[in-house]
């Protein structure tokens, strides 16, 4: 049930978002509606208005169907089926709303040609207003640096997870790189109005920077929560969800504010000459321009970026994106395979090896200080980094009394081996067969007897030596 609720909370709202975002495309911004550039007179044209009305209607129908299908996904019970159905649904929920979009785009382009609104002589033309070129000033990386430093400082409090905090810090700095290089510093030219071009360019660049700064600091907040609330998994989860919601709301607010300003400032545009790049936008979605030397392209509406499919790198990025979308339904199957893979525990030549697939943990028996056979998992065992499934736990965890512990086990099959090394590190292992876990315990015990180095202890909650 928890998995269903998490999935529902994470992606169940996708159709609502898609509906709002794509319906917003029907409003004229920078003379563009549903990816088609039209003159000002088109805003009063009955045929255009009818096409846009139908588009909105279909967008609502499609996304309501998607919401109903999302509810249907809640009826599956096994983890594999739940994950597979949700990922298939996610693919469908992303792709299907674009069918009415593409249909409307095609219809509007046909009408545009019929009405003679095409700039026939200018379709291969690029226009540049040299009085309105955006300045080359960028937000300094120093603005992003404190977020990375916050992540690094956490190493002092939780050195066990230092790799994770370094990754968080690197991600914060990568956000600066994303801000700087995933943006084409291009003027937002709509018509010959230089002031308008300058203002639109500034609005876009300002909001783009704001978005990346917020994302960078949200990353450091995640790191702080991971560090200080790891022993309170419920509180930690609530805080993570809360920060994520705030981040999402802020991102949409920035996107829609930009769109609103683009709409408002260009409401009188398109009455005389206006920029028209439609021929470079396939279905109004994909940019293809062999004459453009740049890979990263600003989307025409909002603050997003796109890639130039005429470039080899653009084709590769698009192919990878399509492959990832196509592979999503197999994620459930893959996770199911991980959740059921064999876990082996073997003592051989003075080394205790626990493995599952490509994950292998090895401990020298001479390094083991104490082994305990537990009938129950330690209380408040919570994941810090790794995999946590109903039938498979692997990675760095923390628990009451023992603190940080490395785990590889099936939580549904007891007993479990709790190992403490001479260095004071804890390991918690368990196979999918209780007898095999007990065998491993016996082997470790007999090895210890031979080496005569390990103490034999009795604990109230399990067997130990």
């Amino acid at each position: 049930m928890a998995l269903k609720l998490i999935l529902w909370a994470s992606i169940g709202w996708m159709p609502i978002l898609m509906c709002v975002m794509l319906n917003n495309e029907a409003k004229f911004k920078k003379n563009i509606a549903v990816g088609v550039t039209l003159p000002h007179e088109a805003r009063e044209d009955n045929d255009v208005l009818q096409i846009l009305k139908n588009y909105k209607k279909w967008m609502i129908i499609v996304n309501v169907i998607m919401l109903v299908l999302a509810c249907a996904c809640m009826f599956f019970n096994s983890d594999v089926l739940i994950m597979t159905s949700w990922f298939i649904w996610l693919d469908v929920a992303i792709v299907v709303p674009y069918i009415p979009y593409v249909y409307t785009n095609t219809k509007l382009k046909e009408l545009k040609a019929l009405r003679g609104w095409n700039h026939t002589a200018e379709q291969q033309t690029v226009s540049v207003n040299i009085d309105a070129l955006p300045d080359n000033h960028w937000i300094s990386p120093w603005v992003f640096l404190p977020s990375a430093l916050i992540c690094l400082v956490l190493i002092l409090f939780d050195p066990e997870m230092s790799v994770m905090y370094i990754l968080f810090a690197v991600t914060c700095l990568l956000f600066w790189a994303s801000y700087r290089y995933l943006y084409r510093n291009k003027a937002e030219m709509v018509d010959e109005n230089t002031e308008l071009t300058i203002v639109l360019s500034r609005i876009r660049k300002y909001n783009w920077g704001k978005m990346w700064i917020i994302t960078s600091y949200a990353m450091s907040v995640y790191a702080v929560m991971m560090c200080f609330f790891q022993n309170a998994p419920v509180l930690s989860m609530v805080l993570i969800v809360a920060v994520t919601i705030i981040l999402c709301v802020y991102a949409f607010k920035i996107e829609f504010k930009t769109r609103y300003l683009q709409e408002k400032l260009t409401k009188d545009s398109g009455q005389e000459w206006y920029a028209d790049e439609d021929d470079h936008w396939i279905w109004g979605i994909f940019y293809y321009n062999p004459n453009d030397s740049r890979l990263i392209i600003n989307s025409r509406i909002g603050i997003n970026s796109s890639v130039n499919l005429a470039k080899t790198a653009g084709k590769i990025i698009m192919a990878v994106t399509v492959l990832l979308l196509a592979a999503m339904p197999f994620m459930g199957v893959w996770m199911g395979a991980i959740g059921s893979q064999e876990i082996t525990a073997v003592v051989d030549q003075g080394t205790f090896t626990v493995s599952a697939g490509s994950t292998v943990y090895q401990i020298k028996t001479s390094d083991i200080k104490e082994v305990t056979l537990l009938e129950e998992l330690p209380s408040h065992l919570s994941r810090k980094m790794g995999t946590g499934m109903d039938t498979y736990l692997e990675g760095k965890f923390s628990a009451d009394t023992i603190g940080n512990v490395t785990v590889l086990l099936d939580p549904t099959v007891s007993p479990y081996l709790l190992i403490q090394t001479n260095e004071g590190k804890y390991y918690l292992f368990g196979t999918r067969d209780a007898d095999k876990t007990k065998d491993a315990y016996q082997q470790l015990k007999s090895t210890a007897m031979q080496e005569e180095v390990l103490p034999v202890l009795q604990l109230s909650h399990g067997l130990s030596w």
Partner: protein
Amino acid sequence: MILKFDFASKVPLYMQLRNQIVIGIAEGKLQAGEKLPTVRALADESGINSMTVSKAYQLLKQENYIVTDRRGGTVVASNTPTKVDPKTVNMLRLHISELRVAGMSKEEVMDLCEKLYEEGI
């Protein structure tokens, strides 16, 4: 001033840029001392190769329409060419011939020239 680059045209892109700058100066859209965008900024903005922009700027510099200095960047020259290039006269001859072949009288050609000249002031 708005520059337009026609990728379907037989006129090379650097020549299109050069011609538009010259027309811009003649029409008064570009004043002496006015700063032009850097090669990189113009290349980024238009999507055309920076070598192409650079080639156009080099040509304009050779023809004394623009000057480049390390501090101020590229600006419109205050002393634009005073001598008419013989090549320009030959081109004008060719264009007038085309107009004559097209059936325009001397008066019509002169009226057209006067109109175009006035547009540039």
